């Protein structure tokens, strides 16, 4: 309870109101705290229906794609590709097959992260937000906590569902279990990676403040840059640089079978978190410095 209705604004009799000082001693009760700002951002996230839909669709696609890939790999769904019965995954990496939806889902959660902050700049809401929290950074942290927390829960569940259903579809002999070496790490890692991509979207959105520009940067970073680097960079540059790109650093801890072109799981996770930290620090500095 913060404000008593007796002192509220708009009393019908201003003279009576003027006679009794309206000031309730509620400054302490109404202090802005990080916890309250998190509550505020939680209301914001839930109260735009299209965002809820995006998050649910992202999780659903994660599962649907995994199951589709598993069906193709198991031969249940025929393809006319060059590898009959194998599909693009050749049934050698059961966890990767069932988690293949990550590639698409990461784009949706990245865009959601961008929108969560760039929208406030687009419609001017950011000024109401920063008027309420003039120190500003609690807003950035709250957005990160609320979105990453929601996505983590949703995407870990989606990842587990994709994996388990996928193994069921692949069938005995072609599948694996969560107990197998590195599998649980890859499944949970996928959930963490997707939550991290949401955070990446927030950071890029805060840096650019422009929805279209920030979405372009996120999509390019995740999809275009890794492929482009392979095409245009000299071979030795390519092998030195590309493992450190956010998407490849993510692959290092979301896949079970390692690769010469990837970092190890721990190294990949460290590099991925490093990206997020650098981008968030940049966003924090710019948010503090720029006029709203």
């Amino acid at each position: 309870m913060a404000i008593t209705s007796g002192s509220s604004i708009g009393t019908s009799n201003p003279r009576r109101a003027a006679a009794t000082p309206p000031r309730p001693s509620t400054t302490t009760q109404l202090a802005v705290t990080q916890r309250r700002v998190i509550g505020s951002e939680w209301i914001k996230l839930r109260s735009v229906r299209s965002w809820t839909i995006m998050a649910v669709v992202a999780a659903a696609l994660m599962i649907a794609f995994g199951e589709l890939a598993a069906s193709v790999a198991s031969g249940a769904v025929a393809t006319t590709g060059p590898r009959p019965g194998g599909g693009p995954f050749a049934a050698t990496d059961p966890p990767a097959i069932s988690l293949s939806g990550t590639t698409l889902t990461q784009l949706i959660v990245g865009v959601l992260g961008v929108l969560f902050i760039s929208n406030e700049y687009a419609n001017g809401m950011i000024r109401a937000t920063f008027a309420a929290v003039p120190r500003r950074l609690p807003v950035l942290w709250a957005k990160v906590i609320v979105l990453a927390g929601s996505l983590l829960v949703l995407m870990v569940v989606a990842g587990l569902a994709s994996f388990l259903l996928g193994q069921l579809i692949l069938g005995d002999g072609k599948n694996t279990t969560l107990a197998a070496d590195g599998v649980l790490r890859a499944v949970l890692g996928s959930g963490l990676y997707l939550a991290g991509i949401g955070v990446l979207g927030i950071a890029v959105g805060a840096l650019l403040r422009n929805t279209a520009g920030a979405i372009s940067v996120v999509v390019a970073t995740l999809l275009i840059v890794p492929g482009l680097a392979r095409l245009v960079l000299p071979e030795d540059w390519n092998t030195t640089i590309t493992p450190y790109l956010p998407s490849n650093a993510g692959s290092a801890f979301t896949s079970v079978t390692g690769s010469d072109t990837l970092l190890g799981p721990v190294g990949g996770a460290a590099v991925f978190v490093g990206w997020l930290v650098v981008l968030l620090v940049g966003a924090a500095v710019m948010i503090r410095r720029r006029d709203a």
Partner: protein
Amino acid sequence: MIVIDHLSKRYGEQVAVDDLTFTVQPGVVTGFLGPNGAGKSTTMRMIIGLDRPDSGQVTVDGRRYAEHRAPIHEVGALLEAKAVHPARSARNHLRAIGATTGVTAKRVDEVLDLVGLTGAAGRRAGDFSLGMSQRLGIAGALLADPQILLFDEPVNGLDPEGILWVRGLLGDLAAQGRTVFVSSHLITELGAVAEQLMIIGRGRLIAEIPMSELGAGAAQRAVHVRSPQAEQLAVLIGADGVSVRTGADRDVIEITGLDSEAVGRRAAEAGIVLYELTPRTVSLEQAFMDLTREAVDYPAHPAAPSSRTDRSAA
């Protein structure tokens, strides 16, 4: 109390606020008047820390706005009406803002009721008319029961009933002992509510006067006289300590501080022939225009190139 101390802000080449100093006193409605582009919104943004001043500072009750523990409990601001996510309902919008500082859902419904939006509380704010958006903005300003209120052009987009309602609200708020600082580019909007006026142009303070004084100036009657002996009449009346203005036409004079009957009588006593004797009132708008003439950024009449850089007038 808001204390603005040598505040300056420029955006690139454009000077928005130029060495502004004044104090907004509690318990009255203070009007912030100036033509469009005079720096009113920029000043208000700097009061609540949205824009950082290049130099100078603003304090609210002795502290910078950002240093208050419960900022929107100190200062409630309506800066722009449509600053809402269009897909969010009015109620959720207010709940999100209020949640930062512990405002209850009950209080949100209270302010929605106060601004007359209870029926539309669950609707998408993007579907609101400008008038409804303005009411939602006012609700946001009142949300945490602040002692100081900033309203930037609050009656923009409101219908006549809404305008009356806002005026009544501003008066009520001041009567409760709150500090009310309200901007407008139209003197007529403020004439009915403001007791004190801060007039700015090109980012500088032009005048700081009580409304009653500007009103008195406006109420002052002028008498327009055309006479072949205008100069003789001017000397005669000027000797009585009355202000006489002569124009380009030697036969025409403007007399202020004497009514038309008195002017006619004095002329008759001196045997001066009058062709025209017309009483005139100066409107509030005219009084304001006279004060701000030199400081208008984009005058309707083309100004000499030098007038833009000539700041001595302000």
